C-alpha cells in the first residue's frame, strides 16, 4: 500500500493524499471492450487519486476513456485488472449487493438526463437513497440542502413540473443528502442552456467549498471544467496531464494539444 501511495503521489498531483484516504482512487486500472479488430483498450494502466473535499473534472475527447473511468470508479462497471478505492474502501472485490450498499451510502450521482424517477415528487426523489437503505432523513441537513439549492418551494412537484435546471438541482440535492464520500457527475450540464448550466455548476462548486463535498465530474465542456479545483486530462485510455484551477483558455489550449 505504501508503495502504491508513493507511486500515485509521484504520478499524480503534488498535493494528493494517500489512496486509502482519497475520495476515490485507482491503481493500474485496465479495461478493454470487444474482441479482435473491434477491440478497444478503454483504460490503459490508469493510476489516479481524487482528493477529498475537492471538485475534480475529467476531460478528454470522445473515446478517451473518461466515461469508462468514471463508471469503474462508481462501481457501475468492472475493470479487467487493477484496484479501485472509494473513501478508503477497496471496491474491486465487492459483489453486487455490497456494491449496491456502497452506492446508496457512499456515492452520489448526477447524470446528464433521466436523473429522477418521474412518478415521485422532488422530495421523494431526494430522499429515495435513504428510503432504499431504510434509514432516516436528517431533517436539518435536508432543510439546509434544499434551501441552499433553492428547492424549498418545489418539493411537492413532480419532475415534469420542474424546469431542466430545477430537475438537475433536485438530482444534486439527492446526491448531497447522504453526505457521500464522492459525488459523480456525468455531463451534469449537458442538457442545460449555458445560464442554467452555470447555476448548477456554481452549486457544485459551493458544495465542495462550503460543505467539503468531494465531486468528480466528467465533461467535455471547458467552461464547466473551469469551475473545478483540478482538471484531469485523458486521451486513448490513459492519463495525459492535469491542470490546477485552470481558466477556460488554459483548458482549451490543453485540449487542443491533445487533439493535435
Amino acid at each position, binding site marked *: 500500500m505504501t508503495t502504491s501511495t508513493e507511486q500515485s503521489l509521484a504520478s499524480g498531483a503534488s498535493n494528493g493524499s494517500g489512496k486509502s484516504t482519497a475520495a476515490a482512487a485507482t491503481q493500474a486500472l485496465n479495461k478493454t471492450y470487444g474482441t479482435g479488430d473491434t477491440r478497444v483498450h478503454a483504460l490503459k494502466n490508469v493510476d489516479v487519486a481524487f482528493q477529498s473535499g475537492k471538485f475534480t473534472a475529467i476531460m478528454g475527447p470522445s473515446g478517451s476513456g473518461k466515461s469508462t473511468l468514471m463508471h469503474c470508479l462508481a462501481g*457501475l462497471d468492472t475493470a479487467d485488472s487493477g484496484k479501485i478505492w472509494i473513501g478508503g474502501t477497496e471496491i474491486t472485490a465487492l459483489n453486487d449487493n455490497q456494491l449496491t450498499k456502497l*452506492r446508496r451510502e457512499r456515492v452520489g450521482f448526477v*447524470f446528464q438526463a433521466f436523473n429522477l424517477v418521474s412518478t415521485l415528487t422532488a422530495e421523494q426523489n431526494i430522499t*429515495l437513497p435513504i*428510503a*432504499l437503505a431504510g434509514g432516516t432523513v436528517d431533517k436539518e441537513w435536508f432543510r439546509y440542502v434544499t434551501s441552499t439549492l433553492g428547492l424549498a418551494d418545489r418539493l411537492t412537484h413532480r419532475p415534469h413540473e420542474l424546469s431542466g435546471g430545477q430537475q438537475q438541482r433536485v438530482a444534486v440535492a439527492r446526491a448531497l443528502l447522504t453526505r457521500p464520500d464522492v459525488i459523480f457527475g456525468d455531463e451534469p450540464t449537458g442538457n442545460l442552456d449555458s445560464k442554467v448550466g452555470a447555476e448548477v455548476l456554481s452549486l457544485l462548486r459551493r458544495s465542495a467549498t462550503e460543505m467539503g463535498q468531494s465531486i468528480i465530474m466528467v465533461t467535455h465542456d471547458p467552461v464547466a471544467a473551469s469551475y473545478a479545483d483540478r482538471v484531469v486530462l485523458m486521451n486513448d485510455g490513459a492519463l495525459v496531464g492535469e491542470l490546477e484551477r485552470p481558466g477556460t483558455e488554459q483548458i482549451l489550449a490543453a485540449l487542443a494539444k491533445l487533439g493535435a
Partner: protein
Amino acid sequence: MLQVALAQVKQHARRFIAVALAVVMAVGFLTATLMVNASTEASLGNSVGAGFRNADLVVSSGLDKPLDERAAEAVADADGVAEVYVQQQTHVAFGAAGEASYGALQNTAPSAGLDHLELIEGTLPGSAEVAVDDATAERLALTVGSQLEFAPGAGMAAAEDVAASGIPATVSAIVKASKDPLMMGQPQFFGTSGLIAALAGEQAPVQVRSIQLDLAAGTDTATAKDAVAAALAAAGFAEPTVNTAAEQTKEVVASFTGGTDQLTIVLLAFALVAVLVSALVVANTFSVLIAQRTRELALLRCIGADRGQIRRSVLVEALLVGVVASVIGVLGAVGLMAGIIAVLQGRPDTEFAALAVPPLAVAVGLVTGVVMTVLAALAPARAATAVAPLAALRPAEDVRVGNRKGKVRLGFGIALVVGGAVVLGLGALNANLLIALPGGAMSFIGLLLCATLFVPPLVTAIGALARPLGVPGKLAAVNAVRNPGRTSATATALLIGVTLVVMMMTGAQTARTAFESELSAQYPVDISIGNLAEDGGQLDEAAVQTALTYDGVAAAGLITTGGYATLNGQRTGVYQLTPAQRELLQDHSLTLDADTVLLAEGSGLDTLTVTGSSGSKELRVVEVSSFSFPPLMSSAVAEEIGVPAPAAADSEEYYSSLPQLWLSVDRDLDATALMELRSELAAGLNVQDYQTSGAAIERAAFNQIIDVLLLVVTGLLAVAVLIALVGVANTLSLSVLERTQESSLLRALGLTRNQLRGMLALEAVLIAGVAALIGSGLGILYGWLGAQSALGTFTAVVPDVPWLQLGAVLAVAVVAGLLASVMPARRAARLSPVEGLATV
C-alpha cells in the same frame, strides 16, 4: 420501494388498465361460475322450502311405510310439540265455467303458526271453501265467491260429469302461487282436510307429504327432535326423518342438485382457460412495462436499490393491480348474477330464483386473481432485476432486457410437443379419449412454450404480403417482429382461444359428418311414416299426394307389402319397391334384383322364402348394416309371386305389413325447418309425431344438440378470446408509447397521419391474423384427432372442416386486430412531429 411501486401504479394507472381488464374478466368468469351452483341451490331451496317455511320441525316419510294420521297422533303427544300440521295433497279434477281441468289440492294448516300461504285477498278457506292461486284465478276469471266443483283427479272426467257429481266449493281466497315444486305448473287449490278426505279414493290417494310441527315456546329444538323421533319409533315408524325446516330444505335440494356439480366442473374448465389466457396477458404487459422502465430501474439501481428491492417493487405493483382488479371482478360477477337472477325472478316459471354469494366463491375469485397476477409478474420482475445500473447512462436504444431462460424453455417445449404428439397419436389410433386428452394438452402447452420459434418467422412471412402497400406496409411488417418475444407472447394469448374455438368447431363438424353417414346407414330413407292413422285408417296413395304438397318434400312413395315370410319365427310382411321408389333410398348403392331380398343386420339367414298370392320364391338375403330396415324386395318379385291381399287386423303379420309412406326431403333443409315439416306432416296425415322417423329426422335432432353445445362452448371460450384481444391492444399501445420519437421522426420525414395509423393497424392485424391462422390450423388438427379419439370406436371419422365458421373466426380476429389498433394509433397520430421529437 413501496413508495416507488405505489407511485408507479397511481401515476401510470392507464398503463395498468389492460392488465386489470384481463384480470377482471377472468376473475369475474371464475366467480360467476362458482356462484351458479350456489344460486341454483338457493333457488331450489326457495322453491322446495316454500311448503314448510314456518314449521319448527318437519317429519318426512321414510321408505318402509308412508306417513299417516296415526303418525300424526303419535307426534302430537311428543314433548314440546304445540301444533301439528299433516300436510296432505291430492290430484283433483275441477269444473269451472263449464270446463273441466286438473289441479293439485293441498290442505291448509290448522293454525296460523304453521300456515305457509300468502293471502292476496279473502280469508283462509273453511269447510266447502277453497283458496286458489292468483295465476289460475286470473286465467279462469275466478274471484272470491266463485263456485267450483271438485271430483277425484284420476280417470277421464268430462266437464258435465264434474259439474253433475262434483263436490261444490266456494272460492274464499286468492293466494300467491306456491313455489313448491310439487305444486308448481298446475292450478293450485288449498282447502280443509275434510275436502281432501271427501275426494280421496283409490284412484287418487291422499298423499301425506310431511308432518309439520310447531314447538311450544322455549322448547329446545334438539330435545324436541329426539322426542318426536322416539314417539314415531314407539308407534312403529322406524324410518321417518325429523328435520328442522332448514335441514329439510338442504336435504331435498341435495337430492335435486347432483347434476349442477357437473355443470360447475365443466364451467370451471372454461374459467381455467380464461385465467390462463389472462395470466399470459398480464405477464406480457408487465414485461413491456418493465422494458419501458429500464432506464428508471437502472437509475434506481444506481442510487442504491438492490435486486431484491427492484423485484419486490414490481411484485407490489402486480399485487396492487391484482387486488383492485380481483375485487372489481368479483363485484362484477355478483352484479352479473344479480342481474340474471332479477330477470329470472320476473318470469313466472322461475320467480323462486335466488342469488347466493357463497364466501368460498368470493374468496376463490379474489385469491386466484391476486395469485395469478403476482405469479404472472414473477418472470417480468426477474427481468427487471437483470437491468444493469449502467443502463441508466446509456442511450435508450441500446437497452434490451435479455432472456437467459429462453433455451431451457425451448428445449422443454419441444420435448412436450414431441411427447404429447406421440401420446395424442396413440389416443387417436386406439380411439381412446382418455389417452388423447392429456397428450393433446401436453403438445399444446409445448407449442405455446416454443411459440418464439414459429410465430415471428410466420409474421415476417405473412408481413411480406403487406409490401405492396409501400413504406407503411414494410415498416409494419418489420415493427411487428421488432421484439420477437413480445410478439410471440401477444400472439400466444390469442392463439389459445382461437385454437380451442376452432377445435370445438372442427370436432363438432367432424362428429356431425360421422354421425350423418352412420345415420344414413341406419335408416332406409329420410323420413318414413308408418303404422295406423289416429282414426285407425291406413296410409294410402292419397297420403302420397298430401305429403308432396308440403314444401321441402322432394319425393314420396307408398310402400306396400308384396309378400309374406317367416323371420325369427314371426310371420312378417315383405315390402316391395318399384324401380322409381328406389330413388327414395338413402343408400343408392343398394340394388334389388329379381332374386334378392334386403334384410336388416343380424338375420343369420342366407335365403328367405317369400310367399305371394299365387306362389312363393326363395330369395338370396343381402344384409344391410342397419337394424331399422324392413324386409325389402323388388316389385318385380311381387308380380311374379302375386301381390297378396292385405293381412287381417288380428293376424300376426298385421302391424309389420301396414303400408308405409317413404319421403325424401330437400338436402338444404335445416334442423328447425325439418322439425317443423315433421310436425306439419304428422298433423296433415293424421298420425302422431313419433310415427315419423328416419335419417333426416334423427340428423336434425342430433344437429340441434350439436349446434346448441357448440354455441355454448364458443360463447364460453369467447371470454378467453376477448381477454387476448385486450392483450393485443395493450401491447400495441405500449409499443406506440415506446416509439413516440420514431413515429415523430417518420412524420417529420413525410409519413402522413393516415399512413401512420395504417401502419399501426397493419401491425395489429398481422399479429392477430397470424395468431388466428396458427390457431385455426392447430384447432383443425386437434378437433379432428379429438373426434377420432372420442368416436373412433363407433364409426369411421373423416376430418371435416367447417370452412364458413373458420372464415368467421379469422374475420373476427382481423377486425378485432383493427379495432385494437384504433386507440393506440389515434394517440400516435395526434402527436405533432415537433412535440414527439422533443419528448425525451
